[in-house]
């Protein structure tokens, strides 16, 4: 009963979502958004009519103006700088707009253009000084803050009364200042347009990525060939232009050149930027953060003014909130990854019956022996992490290496080793197609094809996004093993959609069905997910009927069969379950049966722990990673089975001196070649009585008997 409850709870309650949601980039914005919601809620209770249409429109109008400056400031902060001169630039562009309109009498479109150009030029001064001459941003903009302010003071001394005397009344000017479209203020509309563009720029376009890269690490960006100086300079120009836009709308709204225009604005804008979660120092930030920060600051200042707070209180509150926000933000940014690592692993219930015996003398098909103890060793110390091995028609031996290479050992003595192809990532399962192209699953990258001449092409690295997954599962994280059907479809397993290549053993602690089988069609180039919810699907081998595949579920300790064609299309049947170990790759044997590698043997401790998800959760939270109860992945065996699910033979190595870990095996001309992902060698075992002419993929493609 209790077990049933536990099973039910872990089956239906999505524990793993917490970690996945927290790992989303947008949760960095979570704290600011929560603050915004609290502030908004508090003000809507404290101020009557706060949520009325006209009040919201007024807020939006102001938010638009400060929002533009906020966007500019965000850009500059993301690229790793700071702009303190925005307040003065705002005043000057405001003056520019009103001077050209009221004194020079220019038409409104020309006024708008002049104001933007004025802003851009003012920003360009900062840009050239900081971007090209590489002065410090803080000092430089502090100085331009003073210079621009002085220029403004001098200008208004002469012209403020001329401007004050004018009462400009043009429809287009009034639309900028007070107009709306369906109740949305003109400035807010324009802001939305710019913000959407800004979002696309920062997330989807090359210049935005360059800006992020420079902010993250200027030196690395420079070394990658990004035009660092120009990009930085342009960010300041953009900041100036955006400030100009704000100045234009402000001029149209209030038409004033009072001496205090823009004084202290840099503090408000910087507060908004930091509150939104855009880190001073660069490399992090988004349009949403800028908007959220602006809204928080604006709501607080406006709210306090409306609530009769005396001026000093207002600033004090803003400063206090900035302080608290900065503190929370720093703690959050700093601890976010730690929190994620604490909650990301979410073990679930995995009940297996007691395994069949393997002890010597216990009998049964899994009884241990020492058949593999005399394994020959190939490439000792020269190859690292050959997860899978494969041989071509000319008896050359191929294996992946941890360095992202496909290595080739030349027949007949396998003493000469060469790099056959360099791909990157971690090469895992391999298979030859009809035309001798070698298809390889690359952990962290996807499915790649290598032509016989060593030319590498990407087959696929993404599949369809499933709607119920929080993690973006369209990218392939851990493509594992594959086989190719007669009509050119490649079925490959992806062990997990929750962990990266280097963390794969953690799946053994979680024991959830996080894996899937993906199908790539070489004829159409399309990829789709065929099966999901599998417990670390691993080895794949096309079955004898050519309409189904056999696949291993490593942490389900079972072999299943999936029909992709024929009358049973779409069906999954269990071939064998409750294996004594964790099954890995499956390959064809010369007698028509299948070889299966058991990468490790089950232990009673983990079997028990698998029934106790709460225990494992406590373990991952309280115990350091290297002390976790991991599945045994060190010693295993090779077994031969048939499609009926009978074990025909098992090959063990009691001491594991020559070849400790087995993740894969491949029969070739009377020998069994062994691979192991944590090994520095390839093993070769003579199979007594095996077909001396057997070449797996020649038989597979009918090129030989």
């Amino acid at each position, binding site marked *: 009963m209790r077990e049933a409850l536990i099973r039910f709870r872990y089956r239906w309650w999505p524990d793993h979502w917490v970690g996945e949601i927290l790992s989303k980039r947008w949760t960095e914005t979570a704290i600011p958004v929560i603050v915004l919601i609290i502030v908004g809620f508090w003000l809507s209770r404290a101020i009557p009519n706060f949520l009325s249409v006209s009040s919201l429109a007024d807020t939006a*109008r*102001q938010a638009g103006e400060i929002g533009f400056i906020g966007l500019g400031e965000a850009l500059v902060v993301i690229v790793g700088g700071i702009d303190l001169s925005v307040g003065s630039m705002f005043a000057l562009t405001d003056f520019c707009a009103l001077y050209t309109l009221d004194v020079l009498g220019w038409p409104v479109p020309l006024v708008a253009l002049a104001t933007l150009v004025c802003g851009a030029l003012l920003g360009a001064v900062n840009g050239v000084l900081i971007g090209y001459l590489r002065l410090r941003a803080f000092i430089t903009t502090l100085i331009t803050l003073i210079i621009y302010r002085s220029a403004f*003071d001098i200008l*208004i001394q002469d012209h403020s009364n001329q401007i*004050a005397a004018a009462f400009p009344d043009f429809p287009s000017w009034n639309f900028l200042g007070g107009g709306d479209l369906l109740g949305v203020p003109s400035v807010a509309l324009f802001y939305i347009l710019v913000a959407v563009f800004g979002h696309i720029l920062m997330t989807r376009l090359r210049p935005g990525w360059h800006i992020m890269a420079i902010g993250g690490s200027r030196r690395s960006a420079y070394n990658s060939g990004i035009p660092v100086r120009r990009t930085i300079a342009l960010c300041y120009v953009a900041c100036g232009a955006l400030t100009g836009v704000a100045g234009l709308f402000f001029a149209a709204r209030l038409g004033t050149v009072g001496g*205090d225009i823009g*004084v202290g604005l840099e503090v408000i804008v910087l507060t908004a930027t930091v509150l939104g979660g855009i880190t001073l120092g660069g490399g992090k930030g988004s349009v949403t953060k800028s908007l959220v920060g602006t809204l928080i600051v604006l709501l607080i200042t406006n709210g306090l003014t409306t609530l009769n707070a005396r001026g000093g209180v207002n600033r004090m509150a803003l400063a206090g909130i900035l302080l608290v926000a900065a503190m929370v933000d720093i703690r959050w940014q700093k601890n976010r990854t730690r929190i994620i690592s604490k909650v990301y692993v979410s073990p679930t219930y995995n009940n297996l019956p007691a395994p069949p015996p393997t002890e010597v003398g216990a009998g049964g098909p899994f009884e241990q022996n020492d058949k593999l103890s005399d394994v020959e060793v190939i490439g000792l110390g020269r190859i690292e992490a050959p997860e899978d091995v494969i041989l071509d028609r000319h008896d050359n031996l191929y294996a992946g290496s941890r360095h992202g290479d496909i290595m080739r050992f030349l027949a007949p003595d396998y003493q000469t080793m060469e790099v056959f192809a360099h791909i990157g990532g971690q090469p895992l399962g391999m298979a030859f197609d009809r035309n001798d192209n070698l298809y390889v699953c690359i952990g962290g990258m996807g499915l790649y094809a290598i032509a016989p001449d060593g030319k590498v092409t990407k087959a696929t690295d993404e599949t369809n996004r499933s709607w119920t997954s929080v993690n973006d599962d369209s990218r392939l994280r851990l493509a594992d093993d594959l086989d190719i059907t007669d009509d050119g479809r490649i079925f490959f397993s992806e062990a997990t959609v929750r962990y990266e290549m280097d963390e794969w053993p953690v799946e053994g602690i979680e024991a959830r069905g996080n894996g899937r089988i993906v199908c790539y069609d070489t004829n159409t180039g399309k990829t789709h997910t065929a099966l999901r919810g599998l417990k670390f699907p691993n080895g794949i081998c096309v079955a004898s009927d050519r309409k189904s595949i056999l696949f291993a579920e490593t942490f389900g300790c079972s072999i299943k069969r999936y029909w992709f064609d024929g009358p049973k299309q779409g069906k999954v049947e269990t071939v064998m379950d409750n294996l004594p170990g964790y099954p890995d790759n499956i390959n064809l044997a010369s007698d028509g049966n299948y070889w299966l590698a058991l990468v490790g043997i089950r232990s009673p401790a983990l079997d028990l722990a698998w029934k106790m998800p709460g225990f494992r959760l406590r373990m991952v939270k309280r115990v350091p990673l290297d002390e976790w109860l991991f599945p045994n992945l060190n010693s295993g065996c090779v077994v031969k089975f048939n499609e009926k699910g009978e074990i025909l033979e098992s090959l063990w190595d009691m001491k594991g001196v020559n070849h400790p870990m087995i993740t894969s095996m491949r029969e070739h001309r009377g020998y069994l070649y062994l691979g192991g992902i944590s090994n520095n060698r390839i093993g070769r075992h003579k199979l007594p009585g095996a077909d001396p002419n057997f070449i797996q993929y020649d038989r597979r493609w009918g090129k030989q008997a």
Partner: protein
Amino acid sequence: MMKCGLAALGLLAASSAPALAQKGLDEPFQAPFREALAGKVVAYVPVSMNFDLTEGWWAGLKKELEPYGVKFELRDPNWNTNAGAQAVTSLISEKPAVMVIHNPDVQTYAKLLQRAENEGIYVIQINMGSAYRSSAFVGANWIEIGEKQTEAVVKACEGKSEKIAVVQGALSAAASAYTLKGVENVLAKHPEIKVVASQAADWDAAKAKAITQTVLKQNPDLCGIVGFWDGMDIGTAAAVKEAGLTGKVFVATSGGGERKGACDQVKNGGFDLDMSYDVPTQAAQMAGTIKWLLSSGVKAGSVKGSEYTSLVPITKDNADIATTCWNLGDLKK
């Protein structure tokens, strides 16, 4: 019988007459007046609180209007024009009955005030008006102030260096721009007077002090200073005093006539002339205007009038008289 009846009636009348005589006549206008005021909201947006003028108006208005059940809303932009504009904007959507506005400059609120009156809110502008003329303006005539101050300075300069300085407030504020016009009007008649400096101190005493210090260093023979506000010119006077020129440099300024800010300063020689626009009187005039507007029920913006304050020149001669100045502490009581 008839006579008898009349006599009886007369008797009846006579007997009931004393009762009638005790009943007063119901004044038909006071009840609607009370009704018109009760629960009405008066919103007040000064450029900032915490100085004599704005505190004085606020206290005076409350004293006059609160007994009639008028409610008050205060918005303090704290010298921030943008915050003030926001406050006025949000007030418009809150729709108080009356807005009392103290403009930071002649332009910023102008359109907003127009919008407010279109929405049916009476707008009273106090002391510093805007380019928009609203229902009422209560305040000083800055041109007159500028003229009187300058005339006094010019007179004091007779036979001296004839060099004067002008310490302006915030350039586009009404109290600065219009006063400057008054200064110019007088100077046009006195070409012999040389203005050695005319700078904006933005209503800031520290700035005014700094400006005056520089001017006095360059022109130790300066004979007079026209300052635009006594709250700011405390700095001007301090600079004059530090230079040891008290009594030699004639300092003219203007202000609300608060005891500490005006009379005391004149008495101790800081100012030689302080043109006072007596804040309690202005507050009373505003309150009267509000009463009149609310009880009249006229459409906002349909009548427009001005109430320029009669000025009180404070000099050593009248600074000692108790009624010349007022006391903020007393007004608040």
